[in-house]
């Protein structure tokens, strides 16, 4: 599957095409021109073509208000699209919702539970709503998922008394109640402290390691970069870019970054070594490393008397890729 990238200015162009292989059974989620126009005329999601390969950890990225949650609500059948169609786990929707949803664990727009019930009772309640779930194994399954998210000790405590992080973890536990082929997680780390965020990330990796496709929305680029194999970027209700993270970045040359008080001199040395794009900014000199062995660059710098405080070789971060693509920063607060 090819990374498909369109910049902000390409809205009038054709939507990012789906690679042929991605349009059939090997996708957990496919949308074709999915559109939601609310009654006020506001278009929340516009002609969306998503392709989420099975087994992928797909980061659904975009600022708040870019249509991520509306898209997720449409995927799960909570909101009816006004245009286009979609497939979940190979089944055409919305006709196949009842058949597909038992295989989907979903966290949509934060946790929601019955405040007067305990954590365990809340999970039993949602499990009872799933017609494919076996009531005889419910207690064992609930205990297992509570253990998995580290809430065993609070299983009997009322939800009302849960902290924000516990609530989020309970919601994640609910998504793991049955055997899932797909997890849809809408901002799963919202409200979590750094430790909780790391736990969620580890959990996502665990689940993905078991073969489950994970579709995770976030407004935090760094988070997506750390968890995901694929990424789709929403901007104003449209898909601005989509593809495997590695491919999105592949076109970008690895950069050498030298942290030094002699940035200008370092840049000169790098240029002398034949590296392109050598430049100095503040206490940092940057250049494309190309085929040059990094150790040679480092040795040359030291030989030239540059005080090297730090030396890294890295492909540009996703953020830099997007800045390059769209000519603007990924400013999530707007």
């Amino acid at each position, binding site marked *: 599957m090819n990374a498909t990238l369109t910049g902000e200015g390409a809205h009038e162009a054709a939507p990012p095409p789906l690679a042929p292989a991605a349009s059939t059974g090997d996708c957990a989620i496919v949308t074709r021109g999915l559109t939601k126009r609310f009654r006020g005329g506001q278009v929340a999601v516009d002609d969306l073509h998503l392709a989420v390969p*099975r*087994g992928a*950890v797909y980061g659904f990225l975009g600022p708040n208000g870019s249509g991520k949650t509306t898209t997720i*609500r449409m995927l*799960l*059948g*909570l*909101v*009816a699209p006004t245009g286009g169609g979609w497939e979940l786990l190979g089944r055409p929707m919305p006709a196949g919702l*009842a*058949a597909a*949803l*038992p295989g989907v664990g979903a966290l*949509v*727009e934060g946790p*929601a*539970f*019955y*405040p*007067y019930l305990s954590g365990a009772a809340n999970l039993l*309640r*949602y499990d*009872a*709503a*799933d*017609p*494919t*779930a076996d*009531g005889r194994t419910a207690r064992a*399954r609930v205990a*297992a998922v509570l253990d*998995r998210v*580290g809430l065993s000790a609070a299983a009997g405590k009322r939800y009302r008394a849960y902290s924000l992080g516990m609530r989020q973890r309970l919601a994640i536990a*609910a998504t793991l109640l*049955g*055997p*899932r082929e797909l997890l849809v997680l809408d901002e799963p780390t919202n409200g979590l402290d750094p430790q909780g965020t*790391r*736990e969620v*990330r*580890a959990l996502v*990796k*665990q*689940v993905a*390691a*078991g*073969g489950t*496709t994970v579709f995770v929305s976030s407004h935090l680029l760094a988070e997506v*970069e*750390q968890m995901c*194999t694929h990424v789709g970027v929403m901007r104003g209700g449209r898909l601005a870019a989509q593809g495997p*993270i*590695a491919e999105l*970045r592949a076109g970008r040359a690895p950069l050498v970054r030298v942290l030094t008080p002699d940035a200008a001199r370092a840049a000169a040395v790098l240029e002398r070594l034949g590296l392109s794009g050598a430049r100095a900014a503040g206490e940092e000199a940057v250049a494309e490393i190309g085929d040059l062995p*990094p*150790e040679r660059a480092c040795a040359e710098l030291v030989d030239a008397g540059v005080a090297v405080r730090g030396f890294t*070789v*890295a*492909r*540009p971060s996703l953020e830099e890729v997007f800045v390059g693509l769209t000519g603007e920063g990924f400013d999530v607060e707007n």
Partner: protein
Amino acid sequence: MSRTDATARTGAAPEEPPATGPADGPGVVIDGADRPAIRVATPDAATPDAATSDVATPDAATPDAATSDVATSDAAASGGAPASTPPGGAMPDAGASGAPARARPVAGTWRLLRSELGLTFRRPRNLVLLALLAVVPVVIGVVLRAMGGGGPSIIAQAAGNGLMLTFGAMSVVAQLHLPLAVAVVAGDAVAGEAGTGTLRYLLTAPAGRTRLLLVKFADIAVYAAAACAVVTAAALLTGLALFPAGPVTLLSGTTISFADGLLRVLAVTGYAAVGMAAFGAVGLAVSTLTEAPIGAVAATVGAVVCSNIFGLIPQLEPVRPYLITSWWGEFDGVLRDPVAVDTMTQGLLVFAAYIAVFGTVAWARFTGRDITG
């Protein structure tokens, strides 16, 4: 990239501190608490000097592999670092495996209804309402006992026979108390779940919209029946405690046995339960229109009050037969011999019509609605 271990070490380590539990995988490096750590990715890692710092394997030093960002995404692409095996083998397999689970329509729906009833009958608010309903017959009984009976009304006749208190109490509570209790449960049924957001999780479970609505209605009907049963039970106990029991003299003047009287009490309770269930359908329909349960309850109660007022205005006489409130108290027929079924049959038909009409409204609204709360 073949050396995942090496790339995970150089790449993932700085960004992926151990998430849960002990660091047991090669992809995790624990730095000293706040001492800056230095990592050297180099082909010469085996030199004594380098061995004191964190060391990467030789392959990692090629320009490609040394790029930490690429390493990260590779580690993710290969399904996470080896460190991330699920803790505790008891975990049910969350992976994509096996045949799709089959729906168990009957057992599953039963289970959902039990869950629904559990919520309704464990909720303190709903239990308090039932307790208050039980108080009404007791109060009526005590007042009658204190003031003495007399007069032709059903209520007054209780002074002569404890069993009559059930009919009297039911005719009093059927106009406002019972509908109030049912309105609280019915108005809350969908709007409450929508308001707290639990509705979206029920629907993605997936409960199924039609199935969920049917279960909700069944739950309301059971609560309505329970409310009527509570009134009857409280009235019976009060009546038997405060007044003489024995053969019952009916409105038509004939006398029937106490056992026969009990049967007729059951019939009245059933009739009232159907009437309240029908009203529950109204509440359920209102409940699908909003995400504010208080609003739904208030609107439903308001409907009863308005309907009662319409019933009192002589100019509105022609609409009376169409008002559900007109039929709740129309169970005098059981107090005649033989039982006058005409009026009650008509009442039951009206209740059935209300269930059909408002059930359809609720269904049409609920199945076509966007769940955005």
